[in-house]
């Protein structure tokens, strides 16, 4: 409901002109978005619980997390649909915390597209220009241009209801980018599309972002999507940010158990098992594809850790095979093997005794995320 936000007590109706200066030289040092000490409570619920974040100008930034983790609320605070309980929002260095959405140089692509059903596609796309009193000829030119950008040239006269889900998504995109915002906010924009269309749109969005040079802030709960598209990712959990990093950093060196579990699949070693196998106490993770599977007793190279166990379960997945190996002390590790011809498939048999080894460099020491850890099994967490 919270629609007191739609009829804001407005401070200023006018957008700051300096923001309109375009991708100027100031872009390099001033962050496009700066969040400081952001808190947001809905009654007793702390949806956002202390978020500090800087999003660089021109980057494709994703906010990743399970539902209810606060990522969408942060996006809505940036857009101005929600006002934070505490904290400040700066856009290109300007504090906009108290400004209503229509006075912020950001545009949003909504999860449900939020197209105006009583207007044609062109009417939807030109809406932002219209309310800013851009003249008709200019409007028409830019509508054509924007529809071309989203590959919907010639669809201007249709009604949103006559379009497919993917087409509506593009209209929604065109409606946002036509305003040439400094920042485009995308709230799970691909959530309603089927897998194939979604893959296509992921690539298109990425290309578009690069061509337009707009800062994209992309909210998703799909880690694969985030990894594919983003320059940097913030992983949200329980109203807080667990880690902000590039996709590679995030995957290779997750900072917390939550990140390790949420982004990709991880084998976790902790407590007694960690000390026995690794020789030191702590909380560690190793990715399944980093583990090599050998005959028991095979020589282990320097800089690698090793452990012996018995194959408990085999899952053939086409290009790869997953093996679940029991290390004898109640700990199991998931191993992912490429089905390449150099792999000894004889080892991938249920009941086979095998030796597992992995480079010490790929053993990541984690910070416990505490009670927010999804699932109780410490050794294996599967993300969605």
């Amino acid at each position: 409901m919270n629609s007191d936000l739609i009829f804001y007590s407005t401070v200023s109706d006018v957008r700051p002109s300096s923001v309109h200066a375009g991708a100027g030289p100031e872009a390099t040092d001033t962050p496009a978005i700066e969040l400081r000490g952001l808190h947001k409570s809905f009654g007793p619920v702390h949806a956002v619980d202390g978020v500090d974040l800087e999003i660089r100008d021109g980057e494709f930034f994703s906010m990743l997390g399970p539902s209810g983790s606060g990522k969408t609320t942060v996006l809505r605070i940036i857009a101005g649909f929600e006002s934070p309980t505490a904290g400040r929002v700066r856009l290109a260095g300007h504090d906009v915390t108290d400004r209503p959405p229509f006075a912020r140089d950001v545009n949003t692509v909504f999860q449900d597209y939020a197209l105006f059903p009583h207007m044609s596609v062109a009417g939807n796309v030109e809406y932002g220009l219209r309310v800013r009193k851009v003249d008709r000829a200019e409007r028409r030119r830019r509508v054509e241009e924007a529809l071309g950008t989203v590959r919907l040239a010639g669809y201007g006269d249709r009604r949103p209801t006559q379009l497919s889900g993917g087409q509506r998504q593009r209209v929604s995109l065109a409606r946002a980018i036509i305003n040439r915002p400094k920042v485009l906010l995308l709230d799970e924009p691909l959530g309603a599309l089927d897998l194939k269309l979604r893959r296509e749109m992921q690539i298109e969005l990425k290309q578009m972002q690069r061509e337009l040079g707009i800062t994209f802030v992309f909210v998703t709960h799909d880690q694969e999507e985030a990894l594919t598209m983003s320059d940097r990712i913030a992983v949200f959990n329980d109203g807080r940010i667990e880690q902000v990093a590039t996709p590679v950093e995030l995957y290779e060196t997750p900072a917390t158990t939550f990140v390790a579990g949420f982004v990709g699949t991880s084998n976790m070693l902790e407590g007694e098992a960690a000390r026995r196998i690794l020789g030191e106490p702590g909380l560690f993770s190793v990715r399944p594809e980093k583990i090599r599977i050998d005959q028991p007793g095979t020589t282990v190279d320097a800089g690698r850790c090793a452990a012996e166990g018995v194959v408990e379960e085999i899952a053939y997945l086409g290009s790869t095979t997953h093996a679940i190996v029991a290390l004898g002390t109640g700990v199991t590790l998931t191993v992912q093997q490429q089905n390449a011809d150099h792999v000894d498939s004889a080892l991938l048999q249920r009941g086979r005794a095998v030796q597992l080894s992995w480079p010490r460099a790929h053993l990541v020491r984690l910070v416990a995320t505490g009670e927010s850890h999804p699932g109780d099994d410490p050794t294996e967490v599967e993300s969605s």
Partner: protein
Amino acid sequence: MSVAAALHRRPRLRLGLLLAPPMLWLGVAYLAALAALLVTAFWTANSFTGEVERTWSLENFRELFGIGVYKTVTLRTIGIAALVTVVDAAIAFPIALYMAKVASPRAQRLLVVAVLMPLWASYLVKAYAWRGMLAEGGLIDWIGKPFHASSPGFGVTATILTLAYLWLPYMILPVYAGLERLPTSLLEASSDLGAGPATTLRRVVVPMAMPAVVAGAIFTFSLSLGDYIAVTIVGGANQMLGTVVYANVGAAGNLPFAAAVAMVPVVIMLLFLAAVRRTGALESL
């Protein structure tokens, strides 16, 4: 047992039995009554005894269209119904908007009850309450006194006020339902694209709520069109189509002519419905 089994095997028969009573009701009580009205309009009444004489004639319609007073009354009635509708729409829209998009769920429920509450009171009680308020030295005079304003007295204005009050819930409820169906994300999108509250209202909320407003207007317009009680209570010396019908049924005992007059609001309503059909209002009833 065997009956149940037989019915089970014959779904069409089952459906037929189920639908027959309501269809009969609709057919006989509703359409037949309307048809009877239409037929009666072509008969005449004995001017002395008021008995209906069943000979076909267009006399009633000739009188209806030939005598200026009926045109005056028809235009007055349409004018009153239209103004009542406009007043109701103007009052209902902000209330419904507040209920649907601003109020908390709890306040929302309370407001719905508050809007419905006047419907529980008798029509006559409410109309006479307005008579009391509009009377000399009544509430309106008393409130207006400091501003050197006085009650409009009994007349067309009083009729419009009273009818607008009586039918307000019938406008608020559909508009509220319509606005409630309006996704909040559309309002956010509008604001996000740079539109201030006034522009959002004008370009998004009002156009999207229009079918619901028209749906409400169907109620307020048709109810006002047929009203004859409020106008006798607060309308002063003014007549509406309803009072002419009532006078002809009640006073003159001229049922056929009353039927002819009663066809006027029916025709106006049909024209009105035909005009609003394209707005999609009928779907949001």
